[in-house]
């Protein structure tokens, strides 16, 4: 933290002080309800209410959307979101529930939407009053996203949508969906167009949302079925047939490689949530024993913990070097690694935590004897969601190999 402060401009330093003061008064405190490990597993209305209230209060306090223009409900400042994020993390606040809105929809709407649409949609997206979801994947279109088939048929000034989206996180709470649709069946890429679609208001009236249960036993993602849903042409982003280009804006931000700093909070420590960084493995290994000694004395475990800590530190130092242009070879080389590395490191950490727990790692959430409330086995299971979602690790390696190293395309 000391490091970060040293690099602040005077405007950033003032804003940092402001955030600290604001957070000392407005941190929402321990929730009454169990808060899941990530927003992608929010299941109940009580959880959602608590988190939405927090996001609204942070937005009213000026900590969300700081770098967006004032006209669309932002703070109209430059390079301050990063500071707010630092401070929210430091203060161990809850996370924001509207992750897809903030991380994917907002940059896409900002860069590709008509002014009127931006002004209408973004303020409630920032405040968290409108939850957003992302309708990209379909039963037949996953890694090969451009093969989506959900179809929009033109009918006067309207579009009629039919089709089937799947794995749609947060659709069960969402007011709006960003959606990639086929508007022309004869061109794979140029036949795609991008829209925003009101979901909640159309439930039972062209839209059906069916929850899917994850391997953890949690819900959080859904199937979304469209049957003759009629929407206005003003909900289209960018030109007809430019859906793929618009989707690239979404994906870049989803993978932490976009140019806008996404508002992010988190770190809340409570009975149910846990910190899943590599450093937390040290205390776990000190508490537990094997062969009559602390697990923390086992040389192989020590080595593996250090490997995780080094990888985690390396990733955070990547962000820092990423701001020093003289030390970069290719502008996308570091940004495109973010999603791949953060998900794989989290998986390695959780997998090691399970080895450290030993037999007790068989105990799951709900068992009174489970160490750390069974959060590590849960985190381990959930880590596979993260190496699959938002483009699998294999797809990320293809992208890095092809776009950054210039290796031959594999499609």
């Amino acid at each position, binding site marked *: 933290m000391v490091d970060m402060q040293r690099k602040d401009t005077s405007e950033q330093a003032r804003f940092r002080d402001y955030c600290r003061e604001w957070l000392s008064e407005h941190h929402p405190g321990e929730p009454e309800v169990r808060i899941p490990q990530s927003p992608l597993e929010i299941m109940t209305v009580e959880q959602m209410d608590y988190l939405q209230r927090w996001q609204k209060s942070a937005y009213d306090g000026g900590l969300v959307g700081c770098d967006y223009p004032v006209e669309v409900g932002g703070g109209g400042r430059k390079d301050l979101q990063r500071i707010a994020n630092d401070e929210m993390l430091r203060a161990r606040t809850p996370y924001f529930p509207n992750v897809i809105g903030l991380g994917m929809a907002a940059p896409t709407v900002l860069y590709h939407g008509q002014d009127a649409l931006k002004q209408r949609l973004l303020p409630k997206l920032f405040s968290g009053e409108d939850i957003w979801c992302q309708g990209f994947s379909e039963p037949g279109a996953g890694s090969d996203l451009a093969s989506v088939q959900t179809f929009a048929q033109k009918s006067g000034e309207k579009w009629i949508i039919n089709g089937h989206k799947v794995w749609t996180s947060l659709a069960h709470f969402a007011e709006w969906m960003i959606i990639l649709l086929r508007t022309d069946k004869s061109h794979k890429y140029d036949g795609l167009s991008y829209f925003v679609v009101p979901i909640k208001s159309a439930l039972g009236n062209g839209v059906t949302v069916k929850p899917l249960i994850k391997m953890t036993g949690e819900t959080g993602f859904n199937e979304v079925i469209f049957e003759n849903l009629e929407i206005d042409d003003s909900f289209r982003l960018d030109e007809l047939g430019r859906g793929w280009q618009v989707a690239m804006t979404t994906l870049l931000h989803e993978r932490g490689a976009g140019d806008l700093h996404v508002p992010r909070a988190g770190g809340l420590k409570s009975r149910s949530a846990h910190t899943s960084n590599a450093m937390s493995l040290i205390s776990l290994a000190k508490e537990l024993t094997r062969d009559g000694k602390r697990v923390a*004395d086992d040389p192989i475990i020590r080595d593996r913990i250090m490997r995780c800590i080094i990888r985690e530190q390396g990733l955070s130092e*990547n962000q*820092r070097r990423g701001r020093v242009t*003289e*030390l970069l070879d290719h502008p996308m080389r570091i940004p495109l690694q973010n999603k791949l590395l953060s998900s794989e490191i989290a998986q390695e950490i959780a997998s090691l935590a399970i080895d450290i727990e030993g037999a007790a790692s068989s105990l799951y959430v709900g068992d009174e004897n489970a160490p750390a409330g069974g959060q590590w086995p849960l985190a381990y299971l959930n880590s596979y969601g993260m190496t699959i979602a938002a483009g699998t690790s294999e797809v990320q390696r293809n992208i890095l*190999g092809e776009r*950054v190293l210039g*290796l031959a395309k594999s499609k």
Partner: protein
Amino acid sequence: MSSNTYEFNQDAALLKDSARKFFSEKFPVEKLHELVAQDPTLGRTPQSLWFEELWQEIIELGWPMVAVPESAGGLAMPAVAVAGLVEEFGRAAFPSPMLSTLAATYVLSAADAIGPLEDICSGEAASLAIAGSKDSWGLASTEVTYSNGKLSGTAHYVQDVGKVQKILVSAHSNSDLQLFWVDLRSDGVTLDLDTIVDLTRDQGRVSFHNVEAVPISVKGLSVLAEAMPKIWMLVSADIAGAAEWQLQTTVDYVNTRKQFDKALGFFQAIKHPLVDVMIKVDETRSLLYSMANAVSAAPEKALQLSHMLKASASDLAGFASGRSVQSHGGIGFTWECYVHLYFKRQKHSQMLFGDATWHRARLADILIGPVTA
């Protein structure tokens, strides 16, 4: 300033850039191969092969004194600038006493040894003679002793010793470990080169037979401990530069060579590991500049960052080397192909001043605390 989070300023960028141009113009890899790979014979007599004229030019450019403090007439550039420069020596796999001289410089600076630092500014190259034959990364592993004003015994694993004039010797005395500055041409000093795997370096044993020496410090252990993180930084920077060469060279090859009607890079069994090499290069480089920056900006973090850095770099050295040879196929396994030159330099650097497991064990002692009895 807000766009640049390190002290990596214009001077540092200029230095790095000019080193890169210098080597790409004057020392292409063909020239390296021609110079060091003349004799493939197993069991050949060890030799120190290098372009002394280029080293003279480098002395004139002032690079060997970049890290010497101003008080001794040096350029006193920050560690981030030095890291940037050394990366380019690694990228070129340039045979020279640069790394050794910089390593000696950091020890001499910690000992405030103005005279020897001035020798470096005058163009003399130096190396550390601080390792014993066993347990060589321990700070007190030396088997040299000092008594009645004379040095005796043998120092092992002295880097680039065939290219230097001075050595910095550590020796046990009846008090603490002590440090000395010795001219290799002094009476009673003999040098035997080791036969080593790496063709881009030399290494040797230096024996002392009642040698008179200039004392530098009577607090050898704490002086060495202060300098070591920066020495790990130097080796890591060399590894990072060499690994980027291995990556780019291999990428070029797999983009050109075709099998099954496709460029090799098309196949994910080739593509994905090369992406992993890139990821490891970036991890090492990011840790490198953070560590180097910490030397002045956050000294309390420098030690732990330096262990992270050398652990990361050592793993990178092994991994990038393995992939570079494997992805070249049969040609990559020949003496004629350039990749083995880097493979060997990297394998040397991988264990030099501590391999990855050793550094992770030291890091664990800091972060977890020592193993309880």
